């Protein structure tokens, strides 16, 4: 026993050492290759719009930049458009030299460049555009109300006040915030607003809260309409789907009115004009290396940013735990139907349905299933954690069912006959004799399913749910550093998986103890 324990401790130490070695080694490798890369990068310098053909252009998926830059892709010049889920990811890719420039809205671009000295915005603008609030076509009455409210806010100079607070000249910036009116009676229900809080200064996370120009404008509109504001964070390209499927009433995310978008959704009047600009690396800037401590402080300590990880971890654990329970319950039912059919030809129709279910769930990606469940099937359910639990639970059930079935099949048929010959019914024999033994046989496989599932939940971000991975992403989008947040997330997953593995091994030994 002690021998075994010592072996295990050694194993964990080895894993930890390898992990740290990986981080250090990677850091060294990075510093070495950075010099080489810098030389390569100089060949692809962009000084204006005319230099764009043939280059690698980064955009945020579904943004105006994406739509306009897409034209270059088709002109045969070999231009490559890299589409990122978030603007910050595109900026990171630009920093490490994976792409040559990023086309993005002016205001977020300013925020990025301010934080990254080695980047600059080209003087030549890419294009100008108008932002508006998107709303479902069937909701003309609300659209009219919002337009009226926007008009009033324009006349009362509230819109200017809000923009000045975030992006104005130094004498007004940060001075006069919009304060939600307290004496409004919010009797007209809730206005649910879909946004993508990675688009500073229009919408972004600040100390755990989503804030920004769009959010303040929506708050002001709610104040006018006597409604309560509810903000939902999701990927930018998910906003239109969310609004048209009724998950949200409107979308406010620095969204430009385009012909393509008008096919599926309506827009209110424009509330601001924005410019698309081109960010490039500043060849003149000297790359400044930050120390590990500085970086650590910036990523985790400052503004309590570690809370994104903690909260995300909490969600990840809750989703996994309940999804596993749902998966085992449903999986057991399916396994019983399947073995009942295999053994005695019972319930052929139900068995067929189960077989179809298994085929579909195991034959399609979990992320697609999750999105179908969120956007198509459970449109009425607002609680994303519940949706995620159902989604992952249904997916896991398909795998658990086959694991349990193989467990039942692995119990010697003599056990079944002994139970039946004592007078126990089929159900009694299964429940008292077969299933307890089957569970014991499959415990390692079930534990493994738990481990797979906990990693699988990292796709929760696709429905805008902040799990551990997404928590790391949010930090990444604030600090523009990929290295520490990603490693921290990986390390947390690894520790959880190691703990779970140890727990499963322990339980397995305890259960087996009786039989050896």
């Amino acid at each position, binding site marked *: 026993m002690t021998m075994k324990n010592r072996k295990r401790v050694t194993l964990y130490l080895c894993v930890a050492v390898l992990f740290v070695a990986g981080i250090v080694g990677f850091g060294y490798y990075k510093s070495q290759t950075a010099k080489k890369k810098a030389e390569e990068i100089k060949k692809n310098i962009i000084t204006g719009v005319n230099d764009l053909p043939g280059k690698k252009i980064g955009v945020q998926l579904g943004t105006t930049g994406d739509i306009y830059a897409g034209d270059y892709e088709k002109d045969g010049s070999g231009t490559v458009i890299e589409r990122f889920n978030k603007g910050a990811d595109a900026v990171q890719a630009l920093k490490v030299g994976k792409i040559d420039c990023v086309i993005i809205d002016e205001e977020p671009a300013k925020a990025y460049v301010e934080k990254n000295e080695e980047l600059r915005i080209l003087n030549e603008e890419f294009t100008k555009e108008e932002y508006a609030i998107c709303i479902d076509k069937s909701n003309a009455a609300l659209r009219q109300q919002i337009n009226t409210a926007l008009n009033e806010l324009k006349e009362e100079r509230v819109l200017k006040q809000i923009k000045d607070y975030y992006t104005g000249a130094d004498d007004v910036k940060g001075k006069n915030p919009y304060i939600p009116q307290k004496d409004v009676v919010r009797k007209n229900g809730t206005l649910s607003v879909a946004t993508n809080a990675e688009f500073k200064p229009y919408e972004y996370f600040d100390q755990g809260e989503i804030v920004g120009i769009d959010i303040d404008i929506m708050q002001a509109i709610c104040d006018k309409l006597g409604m309560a504001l509810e903000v939902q964070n999701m990927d930018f390209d998910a906003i239109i789907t969310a609004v048209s499927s009724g998950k949200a009433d409107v979308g406010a995310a620095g969204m430009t009115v385009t012909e393509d978008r008008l096919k599926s959704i309506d827009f209110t009047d424009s509330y601001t004009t924005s410019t698309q600009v081109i960010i490039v690396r500043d060849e003149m800037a000297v790359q400044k290396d930050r120390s590990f401590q500085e970086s650590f402080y910036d990523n985790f300590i400052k503004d309590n940013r570690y809370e994104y990880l903690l909260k995300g971890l909490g969600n990840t654990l809750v989703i996994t735990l309940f999804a596993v329970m749902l998966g085992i319950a449903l999986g057991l039912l399916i396994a019983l139907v399947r073995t009942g059919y295999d053994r005695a030809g019972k319930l052929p129709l139900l068995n067929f349905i189960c077989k179809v279910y298994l085929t579909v769930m195991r034959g399609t990606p979990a992320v697609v299933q999750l999105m179908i469940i969120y956007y198509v099937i459970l449109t009425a359910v607002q609680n994303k954690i519940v949706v995620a639990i159902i989604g992952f639970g249904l997916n896991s059930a398909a795998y658990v069912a086959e694991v349990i079935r193989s467990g039942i099949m692995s119990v010697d048929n003599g056990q079944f006959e*002994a139970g039946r010959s004592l007078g*126990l019914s089929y159900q*009694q024999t299964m429940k*008292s004799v077969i299933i307890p033994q089957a569970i014991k046989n499959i415990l390692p496989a079930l534990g493994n399913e738990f481990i797979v599932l906990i990693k699988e939940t990292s796709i929760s971000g696709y429905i805008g749910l902040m799990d551990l991975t997404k928590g790391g992403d949010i930090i990444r989008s604030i600090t523009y550093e990929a290295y520490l947040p990603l490693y921290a997330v990986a390390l947390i997953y690894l520790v959880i998986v190691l703990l779970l593995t140890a727990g499963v091994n322990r339980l397995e030994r305890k259960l087996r103890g009786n039989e050896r």
Partner: protein
Amino acid sequence: MEREVLIEVKDLYKSFGQHKVLKGINTTISKGEVVAIIGPSGCGKSTFLRSLNLLEEPTSGTVTFEGTDITDESVDINKMREKMGMVFQQFNLFPNMTIRENIMLAPVKRGKMTKEGAAERADELLARISLLDKADAYPAQLSGGQKQRIAIIRALAMNPDVMLFDEPTSALDPEMVGEVLELMRELAAEGMTMVVVTHEMGFAKEVASRILFINEGVIQEDNEPKELFANPRSQRLRDFLSKIL
């Protein structure tokens, strides 16, 4: 003396796919009889025994137990099996339960006894075979002979009217055969009706009241032990006996 008929088998046929195992078996087993079934391997003797409590469903024919045709689908077979104990070659104790739990399971689940009553009965039976000290052990901690004796009293705990034994000593080391046969001998002496598929000719000769010799799916000879061993009528039985004795 006319004895009460317990089991009546009529025109029993059983096929596995194209393979015909039982080809028309007719016999009756009366209360208090100890019937040994012998025959070459693959002759169908185990299939016949397993048909008696419907672990094998007959292809055609009937098995009547205490006046009820148990091949009728409307019969609650679980109720019937409560009265027909069965012992297997491989013991088939439940490895995830203690010995006491093994014995208590069926009486409690079938509503025949309370938990306390079943535990008491289990201890009583264990005391009888001098294994009370193993009540809280698990099957894996016992020898083969101990396991088989416990399998026998597990079946007895349901107070069956008949006990079916399917080669109960074939999986045992030779030195453990004796203790199992001894327990069976005791049961026979107490008047338990028993049907035993066996290769133990000594046991058959000494304990059985009747021997069935099954060959190629039919009962070839049906006689008292002395008569059967002394004067085998068919060539096949003579060949069989000459090989094993």
